[in-house]
């Protein structure tokens, strides 16, 4: 096994891909996010439950497709927990910026936590779309709220 491959699929990504978190349907979700990328067959299904104060209290993520889409979905389902809608928008902006631009202010970057590991995917630019798919699905839905 060469080292180089671990530069794309690092341990955390691989772990999330093989053992996706919150891999469930949830009861009466407040938000349902779906997206497909017909080109590669990636599918995202994220379900979210909000508290009365609009705080995310439960997430379910069932995603199909490539490892990167699956890992990104799984990680997203974890970081959402306990966040308000504003916080999610904020996090998306930082994440999107990391994936698409060259630099992210250090302060902002700290908020990403282990999502920073996904930055590795930029070495393989064509896969960035796979990584962003669960995020764009989510943002599309919560923008409607």
């Amino acid at each position: 096994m060469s080292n180089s491959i671990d530069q794309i699929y690092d341990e955390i990504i691989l772990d999330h891909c093989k053992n996706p978190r919150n891999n469930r349907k949830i009861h009466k979700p407040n938000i349902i996010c779906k997206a497909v990328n017909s080109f590669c067959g990636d599918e995202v299904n994220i379900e979210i439950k909000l508290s009365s104060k609009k705080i995310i209290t439960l997430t379910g993520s069932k995603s199909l497709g490539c490892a990167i889409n699956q890992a990104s979905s799984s990680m997203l389902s974890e970081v959402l927990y306990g966040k308000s809608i504003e916080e999610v928008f904020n996090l998306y902006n930082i994440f999107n910026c990391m994936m698409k631009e060259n630099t992210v202010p250090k302060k902002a970057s700290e908020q990403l936590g282990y999502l920073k590991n996904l930055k590795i995917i930029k070495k393989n630019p064509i896969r960035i779309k796979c990584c962003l798919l669960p995020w764009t699905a989510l943002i599309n839905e919560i923008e409607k709220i």
Partner: protein
Amino acid sequence: MLDIKKIRNDFPILSREVNNKPLIYFDNAATSQKPISVINSLTEFYSKYNSNVHRGVHTLSMESTDLFEEARNRVAKFINSKNSESIIWTRNSTEGINLVSNSWGRKNIQPGDEILVTAMEHHSNLVPWQILADINKAKLVILPINNDGTLNLDEIDTFINSKTKIVSAVHMSNSLGTINPIQELCSKAHKVGAKFMLDGAQSVPHIPTDVADIDCDFLVFSGHKMLGPTGIGVLYVKPEILEEMDPFLTGGEMVLEVSYEKAKWNELPMKFEAGTPNIADAIALGEAIVYLENIGMQNIRNHEIELTEYALSKFKSLDKLTLFGPLDPLIRGGILSFHSEDIHPHDIGTFLDHEGIAIRTGHHCTMPLIRSLNIPATSRASFYIYNTKDEIDYFINTLGNAIRYFTDVK
């Protein structure tokens, strides 16, 4: 037996490394690599002869025209077309099919007529016919395939019937590797008075092609898949059909006389070549053909049968993989499309790339076919003259590693 070592030396890119590994190029069905003679032909043309063709009385123009028309003659000979007026330069196979569906199709397809294509067509041999059927109110009929990826000919006489006006079929499928019984399709088409068009994008680069023998009415292929440069392709049309076809693109070069009101078309094949042609790339495609002919198309086919047989046998060592297309190498080209339930093709592609191996992953522009297989995409390895059994060994080995990497639970 090909002298692969010698051949490999002719391809500069093969000495390149990818991710610090020697490049193994298994994406030949998408586009082939180019030998130095083809690359040099471009350099030489632009350094010595470059000029616009036809009608110039100066030396460079006459020399360019000669080289350009010589390349056309070479193409004609290569596919055994008796005359070179039948050879129309296009950008690629896709443009050739569009030319036929527009120039021949719009004029000759009547409401209620049927156009038959197979279930394994490339989008380029599907979408133009969808459009034509739509505009001319005709019916596009799809000839189904069997589970092994061959055409289902059980009811062929129902599919090719008196309503059928054209049958357009791929010779070698770019996603299954299947080589279709085109001679049979062609003669069935002719029996009902339909035209037969052959999509030779994958076959012309890999197996001997003889239009006189096949008796096809139209044939398209792309230079870039047969050692030639990008931007040049060929449409062959039977002379008697060509005479009756209206031009497609119009403008300079394709007219003989023009007034402000109207234009009179030029002689064949210029009538179908509007504007300044892709002169240098046409000439370089001629060089590519010289290279292929020096090796011999039958030798190339034999080499690829050998590689395919070898790869098919090695594939057995990998479980969890489904392989598509027929297993008999005599009816399949050097194209291996496979899928694993556990790993997405893109992950396989990325993994192999990190080991220096270039394969293609996706639907290979045959989306309806891939959908009918109930998978999102396939991984595809495709071979050419410079590929070796050693490369296949390394590929199979690396593929095994990929499967373990993604499926082993720590």
